[in-house]
């Protein structure tokens, strides 16, 4: 990795934060960005914000952040990418734009170099993807930890905002409104 790239990312991200930095544009620069994202079947629902490539990165991330396992419905079945897209559509346009750039940056093979891979995140095997995620989480660079946290919150939030997760986590859901009688409190 060139010193120029390293210096630029550190300077820009640390000064402005992941949501303020023009450095997010780096995600679309460099020859390694030309390495394609692994495609993901598009959902039936129309995406408002994400491109097919960005959607594929979201689904690749979701498949490791909320993996399908006993008791947990797969992120694909849960429609995590569509919910992610819907959430972005409600956030300020600038935030949505930065998240889109961050997704492209995250999948840039250049970023995977930190953890010893020269392929885009979406092209890696599951174990390799977990190592990349751990590298972002444990990075000494605040911008990488910030970037991962932004995507983590959106993906985990998209997954657990579906009531089909309630059974997985032993949550019985809110009480029926039928049983709620105003002014019949218990404290007096």
């Amino acid at each position, binding site marked *: 990795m060139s010193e120029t790239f390293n210096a630029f990312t550190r300077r820009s991200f640390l000064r*402005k*934060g*992941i*949501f*303020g930095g023009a450095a997010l544009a780096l995600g679309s620069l460099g020859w390694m960005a030309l390495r394609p994202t692994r495609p993901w079947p598009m959902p039936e629902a129309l995406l*408002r914000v994400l491109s097919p490539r960005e959607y594929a990165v979201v689904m690749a991330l979701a498949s*490791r*952040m*909320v*993996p399908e*396992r006993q*008791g*947990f419905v797969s992120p694909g079945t849960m429609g995590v990418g569509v919910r992610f897209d*819907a*959430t972005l*559509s*409600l*956030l*300020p346009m*600038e*935030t949505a734009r930065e998240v889109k750039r961050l997704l492209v940056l995250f999948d840039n093979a250049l970023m995977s170099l930190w953890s010893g891979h020269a392929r885009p995140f979406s092209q890696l095997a599951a174990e390799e993807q*977990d190592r990349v*995620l751990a590298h972002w*989480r*444990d990075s000494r660079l*605040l911008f990488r*930890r*910030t970037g991962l*946290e*932004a995507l*983590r*919150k959106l*993906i*985990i*939030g998209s*997954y*657990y*905002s*579906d*009531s089909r*997760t*309630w059974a*997985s*986590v*032993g*949550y019985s859901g*809110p*009480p029926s*409104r039928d049983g*709620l*009688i*105003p*002014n*019949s*409190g*218990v*404290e*007096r």
Partner: protein
Amino acid sequence: MSDIDLACDVCIVGSGAGGAVLGHALTERGLSVVMLEEGGHYTSKDFDMREETAYARMYQDLGSRTTDDLAITLLQGKSVGGSTTVNWCTCFRMPDAVLTHWRDRFGVRTLTPGVLAPHFEALEAKLHIVQWPEALMNANNRVLWEGCGALGYQRELVRRNVHACQNLGYCGLGCPTDAKQSMNVTLIPEAVQKGMQLFPETRVEALEWTGRRVTKVHAHKLLRQAHGAQLKGPRMTIHPKVTAVCAGAVGSPLLLLRSGLSAQGQVGKRMFLHPTAVMMAHFDRPIHPHQGAPQSVTSHHFRERGTGRVGFFMETPPVHPLLAAVTLPGFGEVHQQTMTRLPYSNVLIALLADGFLPQEEGGTVALRRGDERPSLKYALLPEHWDAMREACKAMARVQFAAGAREVRSLHAVPVVMRSVSDIALLDQAPWEPLRVRVVSAHVMGGCAMGSVVNEQLRYKDLENLFVVDGSVFPTSLGVNPQLSIFGIARWAADPVREAVSHP
């Protein structure tokens, strides 16, 4: 030319703890009041007790407001009633020691315990603020109660603003039975009935001022699209005799800055957060931490930790699955396993009383160039990290004393403790931004008394502009701020009325 033009005695921007109490008090005094609120107007019929509904409708940034580096998550309300609509009902009077500190360090002499007492008494009676009975304490709070009891730590029952509460535990999602005496069901409807004009979904763009007076408040209605996003609608112009900015500790400084009012660079400075550490414990018995009054016990045992150190106080949060999922660190199977143990989990929080050390300048609220989003920065100092670490150790001791089988920190790689002797592992853990979860539900400061507003809460450089909310606090409070904001807003009604009567 605007689509709507209105004249009034007082224009209040924001309908939360400050704006609602002020609007009610001024309306009672016979003044004509226009209240503008950016968020929507929801009632108990709208409160379906589902997180995905509540965060999208009634929290700033869909519940995901953060500092710029995402290191601190900030929960702030956004609807008619502001944070009172979605808070956890905890009520403390402003501590005497805080008022003494403000007098000695910032020259704030108007606010004294004696001056504020009648206002607190009136509000406590009006809003049914009484101690929550121990017999109704939920299992999550009982961990704090019993753990503190076993260790000899100071503990007390919390006073709550509820009437005929059914002990459901959904306060943070909007009370479905109107038991919570939040502003949207108490003072705002009363004031509207007496003539106050309330405009929800109305965003104030800027205050127009000439010389030393605000002459117009420029706003526009927000139009909701089918998928929930909002567009700018008709323009509004208010022509008030006096303006009171009550938009909270982020919204108020931002509005002043958008209006070209910086108070010589002091607007947006001294933002304090009660930066909050979180600890999770697993028990063999069910806890169901989402059920029951969410916050009914507090411990101020560590509020004073000696010269040069930051104190903290311990409480409990409600633990609903979506908020838990995004607050718990990590991802993958480890995260899922932790989530499956929620019904047997207790969560404690420790809130740092920030702003009292000379070196604590606090965070900042600022505008971004070419961007409507606020820029929020807060650098945690070594003194804060020391308090965070000691707070996590204290919470772990409490949790083990109450019978926890395992305690986990909220580090990115959690510190897992299975006995009291493991608590020392926290000394080796990393205490840095985004290596351990830090949250806040109490944003204060940004328009501090002494530097931005005077002792009457009037903006220093203008004659008819007041700021009346938690943004005027020059430090944090060291207690949950709701009742303190109520109290100073009721007290501020007199200087505001005076400014209307004698311009």
